[in-house]
């Protein structure tokens, strides 16, 4: 095992140091501990090494070599490899260590990243938060950072996105940006992206100045959709009034009744989301207006009431 590690260190050093791409034969001639003599075994061992290095983020460049046509050579461009000096202070490293120990994400990527920034500093912190992870998140983030378009399937439809940012909200990751097919701002749940997204070439778009990705996520599911909003009023029983006022804010209250109940006003675009919200309050709420939303709810519930199996 030490032999393999030694070879991996030497391979990384050699590929970083070389001024021209080296073919596998050239590498095998030079490297110690040496690769197997037999061609197929040598290729397999080298491919394994390459894969291990790529998993760690080591950017191995594969380039064609001007010898017997078809041959490729390998090298590492120092500019792709070296982490720029972030000039972090010890306090800043300690603060990042606190963050990484307090906020949990699945996997060890944050810890691995911290080691590259100079390892742990200070004593860390007990767990305070847990964030969701999604397989496509790293691809989405890379596309944001390098201005690459993203092509993916979402709810069975193909999408082309100029991604401006990633946002964690309501316990999920969203990737937000301009949907190029529909020419408008959109937010997509990263965990609902089907398969691996395909990223375009770097630097193919420029996000509008002062983009705040968080603004792409709408606060209120009731306003999702393109229909014209209607104002609905809902009577909430005294026992649940404080919870609802907390949720909607004092501004939503249009009437306080003597029995402690309140009437609140909501702007509704998405009727289903509105129904779900009202039903969340069970028998403690009643839709007062408009008449059609009230009738919708009565019809919806009546379908159950017949179900007395």
């Amino acid at each position: 095992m030490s032999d393999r590690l030694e070879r991996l260190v030497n391979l990384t050093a050699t590929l970083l140091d070389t001024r021209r791409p080296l073919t596998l034969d050239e590498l095998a001639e030079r490297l110690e501990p040496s690769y197997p003599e037999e061609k197929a075994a040598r290729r397999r061992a080298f491919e394994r090494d390459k894969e291990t290095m790529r998993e760690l983020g080591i950017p191995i460049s594969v380039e064609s070599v001007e010898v017997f046509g078809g041959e490729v050579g390998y090298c590492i461009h120092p500019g792709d490899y070296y982490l720029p000096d972030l000039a972090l202070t010890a306090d800043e490293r300690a603060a990042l260590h606190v963050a990484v120990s307090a906020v949990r994400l699945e996997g060890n990527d944050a810890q691995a990243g911290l080691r590259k920034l100079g390892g742990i500093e200070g004593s860390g912190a007990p767990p305070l938060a847990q964030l969701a992870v999604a397989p496509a998140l790293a691809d989405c983030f890379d596309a944001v950072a390098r201005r690459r378009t993203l092509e993916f399937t979402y709810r069975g439809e193909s999408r082309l996105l100029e991604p401006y940012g990633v946002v964690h909200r309501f316990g999920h990751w969203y990737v937000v940006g301009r949907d190029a097919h529909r020419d408008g701002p959109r937010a997509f749940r990263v965990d609902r992206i089907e398969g691996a997204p395909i990223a375009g070439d770097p630097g193919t778009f420029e996000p509008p100045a002062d983009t705040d990705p968080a603004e792409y996520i709408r606060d209120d599911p009731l306003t999702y959709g393109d229909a014209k909003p209607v104002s609905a009023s809902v009577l909430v029983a005294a026992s649940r009034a404080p919870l609802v006022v907390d949720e909607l804010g004092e501004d939503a209250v249009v009437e306080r009744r003597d029995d402690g109940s309140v009437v609140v006003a909501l702007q509704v675009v998405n009727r289903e989301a509105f129904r779900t919200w009202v039903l969340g309050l069970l028998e403690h709420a009643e839709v007062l207006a408009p008449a059609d939303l009230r009738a919708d709810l009565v019809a919806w519930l009546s379908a159950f009431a017949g179900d007395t199996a």
Partner: protein
Amino acid sequence: MSRRRESGVRLQRVLALVPWILANPGVTVSELAARFEVEERELEEDLELLPMCGLPPYTADRLIDLVVADDGAVTIRLAEYFERPVRLTPAEGVALLAAGRALLAVPGSDPDGPLATGLEKLERALGATGSLAVHVDAADHLEQLRAAVERGDQVELDYYSSARDEMTTRVVDPFRIFHAFGAWYLAAWCHRAGAERLFRVDRVRAVRETGHRVEFSDTTVSDGSDLVYRPSPDDPRVRLRLAPDAAWVAESIPTEDRVVRRNGTIEVVLAVSGPAFLERLLLSLGPAATVMKPVEVRAEVAAAASRILERYAPTST
């Protein structure tokens, strides 16, 4: 861990370790072990390996020159090509930023402190300034409950139990507060239930100190490795058949025993933490969900629908 995987882990460590030693000559073995979270013995193995590494043809002037002095001070020469660590992978970059942004969003964090400045440097290096945000909602009693956890104060809560749709008052011994799934939770020993319980902080209506202090030994509380809600094994189970457009239920609620049928419908089993939870879910799903087992649940949901409909009956107003 497989041996192959272990080589990767050690390579990763070596490529971070060497630049640090180059930048901080004289750093001791024990400092390095603490900084890179590794046993001293393991670290010594890495350090013993390095003098055998270098560039072809592996003559003395091409090998890494590493010296560990008697007092443990480490110096390195002839390894200029490892002067800087490897760039962060996108997964590492997003994980670091996410953890940092999340902590910075927690009420009470210093918006101009070292975490904020460190994150700015990190974002600039990644070319991702302002492109990652983590939203952490504040909740009314958050600060008060965090203080209670820190001091070990027993408190009495007025709490709205959503699963049972009832207001309750209970004495609890709080031991942890955390944010998960977009909400704050308080983990506490509940004297009313006689068991450990999770409370959503935004459903806490009032907090009163009882004047008692509580002390937990490490063995009496769960260790925090598991911040996630797990259905109780004692909760009743319900089997549902979901139409394809209700598939989100299986993503949003912990489900067990999930089967996708050929026609696109999904059957799931879920734990019912309280009757109101199930009533809300089934009433809002409507025809998109069918209760398979136990069938009595259908009548319970029908009864809930009737209870709500009474509000709309012409005689009730």
